[in-house]
């Protein structure tokens, strides 16, 4: 089972952020249910995703997983 693949459990687009992320707004975060089990909070790159859509982890920055929508 691919540990980098999962399904969007919930998501949001953030317009008002903490100091550390203020330069990046708007950006999307999501809780992803991994195929391998468990959930993780990560960032979404590229196209906006919705609940139940499938995503793949494309990179990890400082421990934070970044996902992208897959068909």
């Amino acid at each position: 089972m691919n540990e980098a693949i999962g399904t969007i459990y919930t998501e949001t687009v953030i317009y008002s952020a903490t100091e550390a992320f203020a330069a990046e707004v708007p950006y999307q975060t999501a809780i992803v249910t991994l195929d391998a089990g468990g959930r993780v909070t990560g960032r979404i790159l590229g196209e906006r995703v919705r609940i139940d859509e499938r995503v793949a982890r494309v990179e990890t920055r400082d421990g934070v997983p970044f996902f992208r929508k897959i068909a």
Partner: protein
Amino acid sequence: MRSVAVVGIGKTPFGAFPGRDLRSLAVEAGEKCFKNAHAAPAQVDAFFLGNFAGPSFAGQNHLAPYVSTALGIHGVPSTRVEAACASSGSAFFHAYTGVASGVYDLVLVVGAEKMTSQPTPRVTEILAGAGDCAGEIKAGSTFASLFAMIARRHMFQFGTTREHLAAVAVKNHANGALNPDAQMRKVITMEQAMNGKPIADPLNLYDCSLISDGAAAVLIAPFERAGEFTDKPVRVLGISQASDFVALDQKPDITTFPAVRRAAGKAYQMAGVGPADIQLAELHDCFTIAEIIAIEDLGFAPRGEGGPFTLEGHTARTGDKPINTSGGLKSKGHPVGATGVAQICDLVLQMRCEAGERQVPRHSLSLAQNLGGSGATCVVTILGTI
């Protein structure tokens, strides 16, 4: 266990007060409370302070004796309790256990927070400290975004709408407009509440509680001694605190808060009452979706029905289950460490028939629900004059 009563209340107005520091706000609330109960600082057996982030907001630690000595309370145990936005609800719970068990007689509980000394992005960052800093916060989450994700999932599972969220804000602002101590005494329309500046989709500015300065205080005593302080004692019939995961992504289902259900279940059992018996409530509307879920978790409406229950007017001041007649965190203000005790103060005002224009006709059995973080702490208190 002994029966415990609230015998005095005191509050500062909530708002942005540039010239005031944390201690002066806490002292004002405490002094008003002593006056209200015809009591003196020397009579107090213990002091509890509910405060979330004084060290971060104001650069001051060791806050409990810092405040209690300024109030003229000397020598007795003086303890700060931190449980995010449930800090003073938790302080109240621990004060209650001390009096009910017979360790103390008279205990003063103050909740206080000074937030407006920092710019909004810094406030957002300090508040984020109540989340999982190694996980969700590191990924860029804010508290608004955590509740936005809760709202998104609740909408997906139950069909909750933007209109349902807006109805909470409109209702709480209508109540706050009648509260002289509220921060935002302003009626808002559904159209405004539906179209506010986006904060974290689907939540906009009108879904979010305020950044506030303020303090609130209550004095509690064994019920048998209540007559020494007031002719309108309010009895604590049931109270419980419960806990859960801090990180949202560790919860199996984010559309319900197990800590709320657990605390409520125990408090109802202790009081010998059920949700249908509660005549009015102060609920933790840090975000509009939080009030909708609290309505469901407390059993006022079935799961998924909190939105329609609100839109139908049941929770309005004139409805059959008035919620947040004070204006709630949304309109009254949310100095986070003060909120739990302020909820008790607002219920006691109603139960003493001293709530002025916002007085409701049925006020003998009430409930306060104070939530910390995204549901990791919850305190539920049931008060009665019956």
